């Protein structure tokens, strides 16, 4: 009896989506056994490798997930990439249900002429380097004196904040110091942040803009009308907050010291990236006008997409309505909804997908088979290689112990080394 009511469920990805889904299933399907796979030795996905190093308060959500991994019915299997070390088909045989929570890692392409020129860099590549992601290009690419950021969302603002901050502002962070040092050796002199939307409709959170205003760094200006949104319509609260924050940022009497000159541009559409052998500028359409902004580098922060090499990229449809691919196979988080939404949105999303799984169990389209072996059915070689939660804790402790006195952690960018340390080698 008990085996037929205790489904074995595999979750692929230990980012917020996978963790929230596991939390939800633990409550909704009593007795279920969960294995959370991640290709990396460390859990938490973008909480560890996307969220800015100087926003440690946001990373505090991992303490909630720590509790999840301590649950006896939950197993972390780190360092196992589905599609390389084990196939999705194998997992579907070994588990009653499989949930894809792999996120979306590729920077969305600009899709305009010149976008492939050297000097055009995705924001994901930069934020991974600053977070010491093992896949990241180790040295931060040289950005030069004139950086153009394309995009006005929170990731674009994370990049802007990085470009204007000085060393002292990283106290208590876990920034990759090599990357910080490389940038601060030749920081940007001018930064232009270009949003396609008008200021009130741009995507950044007001709080992120207020944070920039509160930093005693950089000089901000904008030649564009800040309040010109959908003319005539009253601004909603977020839009009003954004406008107020931008006003504060560009106010003539804002206290300032040193730092780059930052120009905020709104309502501009990128047309092409200019340059012979590398980036020299970007051409934008502003209404009927064409504007050229000189650039030594261009950082694109216009969203994310499935990595074309990802083993099941085709299953991670951007903006799917339902988490159910078919009974027994589901998706959640960015892999389901597309690259939109902050950490909390993944909780509501996971709850909805967990409800779909519960519904499939209830109507019999999904059932727990007594013969599924779950994690134990994996090849011994894979099982032995999987980094368990206790091993991650050892690596976690090691990273904390390596931190300089003004850092909370020092991440190791070398994945093999991470695995050795996790194993106590």
């Amino acid at each position: 009896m008990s085996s037929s009511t205790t489904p074995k469920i595999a979750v692929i990805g230990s980012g917020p989506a996978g963790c929230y889904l596991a939390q939800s299933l633990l409550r909704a399907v009593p007795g279920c056994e969960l294995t959370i796979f991640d290709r990396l030795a460390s859990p938490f996905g973008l909480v560890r490798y996307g969220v800015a190093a100087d926003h440690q308060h946001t990373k505090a959500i991992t303490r909630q997930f720590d509790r999840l991994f301590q649950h006896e019915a939950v197993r972390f299997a780190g360092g196992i990439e589905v599609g390389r070390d084990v196939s999705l088909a194998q997992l579907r045989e070994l588990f009653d249900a499989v949930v894809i929570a792999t996120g979306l890692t590729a920077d969305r392409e600009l899709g305009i002429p010149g976008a492939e020129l050297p000097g055009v860099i995705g924001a994901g590549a930069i934020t991974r380097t600053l977070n010491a992601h093992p896949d990241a290009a180790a040295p931060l690419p040289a950005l030069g004196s004139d950086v153009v950021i394309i995009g006005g969302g929170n990731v674009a603002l994370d990049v802007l904040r990085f470009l204007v901050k000085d060393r002292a502002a990283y106290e208590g962070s876990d920034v990759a110091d090599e990357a910080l040092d490389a940038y601060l050796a030749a920081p940007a002199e001018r930064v232009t942040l270009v949003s396609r939307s008008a200021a009130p409709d741009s995507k950044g959170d007001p709080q992120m803009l207020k944070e920039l205003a509160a930093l005693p760094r950089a000089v901000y200006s904008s030649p564009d009308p800040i309040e010109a949104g959908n003319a005539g319509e009253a601004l909603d609260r977020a839009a009003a907050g954004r406008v107020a924050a931008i006003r504060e940022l560009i106010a003539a009497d804002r206290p300032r010291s040193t730092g780059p000159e930052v120009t905020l541009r709104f309502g501009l559409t990128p047309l092409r990236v200019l340059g012979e052998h590398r980036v020299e500028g970007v051409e934008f359409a502003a209404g009927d006008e064409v504007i050229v902004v000189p650039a030594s580098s261009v950082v694109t922060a216009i969203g994310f997409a499935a990595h074309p090499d990802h083993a099941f990229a085709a299953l991670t449809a951007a903006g799917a309505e339902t988490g159910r691919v078919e009974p027994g196979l589901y998706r959640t988080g960015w892999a389901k909804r597309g690259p939109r939404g902050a950490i909390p949105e993944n909780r509501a999303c996971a709850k909805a997908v967990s409800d779909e799984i519960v519904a499939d169990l209830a109507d019999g389209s999904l059932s727990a088979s007594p013969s599924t072996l779950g994690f134990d059915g994996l090849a011994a070689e894979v099982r032995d290689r999987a980094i368990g939660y206790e091993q991650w804790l050892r690596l976690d402790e090691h990273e904390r112990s390596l931190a300089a006195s003004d850092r909370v952690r020092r991440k190791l960018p070398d994945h093999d080394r991470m695995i050795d340390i996790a194993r106590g080698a």
Partner: protein
Amino acid sequence: MKFTVLYGTESGNSELIAEDLGAKLRETHDDVEVFDLQNFDPAELTPERFTIVVCSTHGEGDLPNTAIPFAEAFDAALPDLTGVRYAMFGLGDTFYEETYSQGSEHIDRRFAQQGAERVGDYGRHDASSWDMGSDVALEWLPGVLEAASATV
């Protein structure tokens, strides 16, 4: 005493704290219920049960998503809460300087306006503090229980 622990959350921290408070109370009390605010009918607030609300802050000093349906139901019904005693534990983040921990205050104001009486200290957790929310809440609880029994 009988207890109802209610939580309003968006990223799950309040739920964890509410569950931990519920588990702690069950060690010494037989009748302890824990509900997500979105699954709780304001008409169920009664003087027979001591109510503990754990609620975070989102947006700009706003209620978290799961507390919004409750607030709407509350405003539609405006229950008489005379005799209801409750305690508040608010979550927030001092990173949001101007709106710190205001989410739970939306509920607190409603309860007070309808005649309920808040007991003990107003508990707070600051996500920037790096303290565990549950630790802070479990330290806060005995004072609330003491104040609650002193005023019976």
